[in-house]
């Protein structure tokens, strides 16, 4: 039986490597056919900002990879509302991530779900394995 895997992202991109190496785990993990979710809270919400351009810092811009997650059947992406608001951001500041639902004639659907802290607590409660980054 598939386990519920939650990737919990709490850190900003570039300042530390956790965001990038978390994404590497998610991509590898997608091949294992488990029930995968990603959560972004605290500074983790910064990972999803639009318009990242790393030309000036000499580091690799890995933000385009998030838009490929849908192709890997990773489409449950939870962003905590409180974390976003505290940072002066809205959903419009984040990338628009989508996936195509095979069961509904490949209809394009949003991958990101904005959830309250209380809703996220319930989602977390339901997981079998939490990977923290």
């Amino acid at each position, binding site marked *: 039986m598939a*386990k519920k*895997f939650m990737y919990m992202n709490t850190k900003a991109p570039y300042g530390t*490597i*956790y965001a990038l*190496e978390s994404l*590497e*785990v998610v991509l*590898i*993990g997608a*091949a*294992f056919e*488990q029930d995968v979710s990603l959560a972004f809270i605290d500074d983790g919400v910064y990972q999803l900002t639009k318009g990242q351009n790393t030309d000036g810092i000499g580091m690799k811009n890995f933000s385009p990879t998030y838009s490929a997650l849908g192709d890997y059947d990773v489409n449950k992406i939870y962003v905590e509302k409180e974390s976003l608001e505290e940072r002066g951001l809205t959903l419009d500041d984040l990338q628009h991530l989508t996936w195509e639902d095979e069961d509904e004639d490949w209809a394009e659907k949003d991958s990101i779900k904005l959830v309250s802290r209380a809703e996220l607590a319930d989602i977390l409660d339901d997981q079998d*394995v*939490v*990977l*923290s980054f």
Partner: protein
Amino acid sequence: MKLSIQINEGPYQHQAADSAYQFAKAALAKGHEIFRVFFYHDGVNNATRLAVPPQDDRNITQQWTDLQKEHDLDLVVCIAAAQRRGLMDEDEAKRQGKDANNIAEGFRISGLGQLIEAGIESDHLVTFGA
């Protein structure tokens, strides 16, 4: 129970590596099974055999090597993280054209799939990091 342990930080810099070791030792002493210890991020640096800590301090790598021998532990160093940080075994050194290798006895280098597998196969994945 069947446990796996993930270690995300290097030796000495953060206590995470020490806590993981103390936890692993206690779990084994209580008769629990450790399916795998997975070293990720800077955690791969725990696997170097070139460290020479002060004589009155613990040798973190040696502690793992000894525990591995005693309990036949599966100590896995993530290859992607290791390549970035300069941890390699003999085979990898050959493949990459490097003139030296630095991995300690008892550790093996493998892919991230080993972490996912540990999550699937174990009752609990316990993470130590920063």
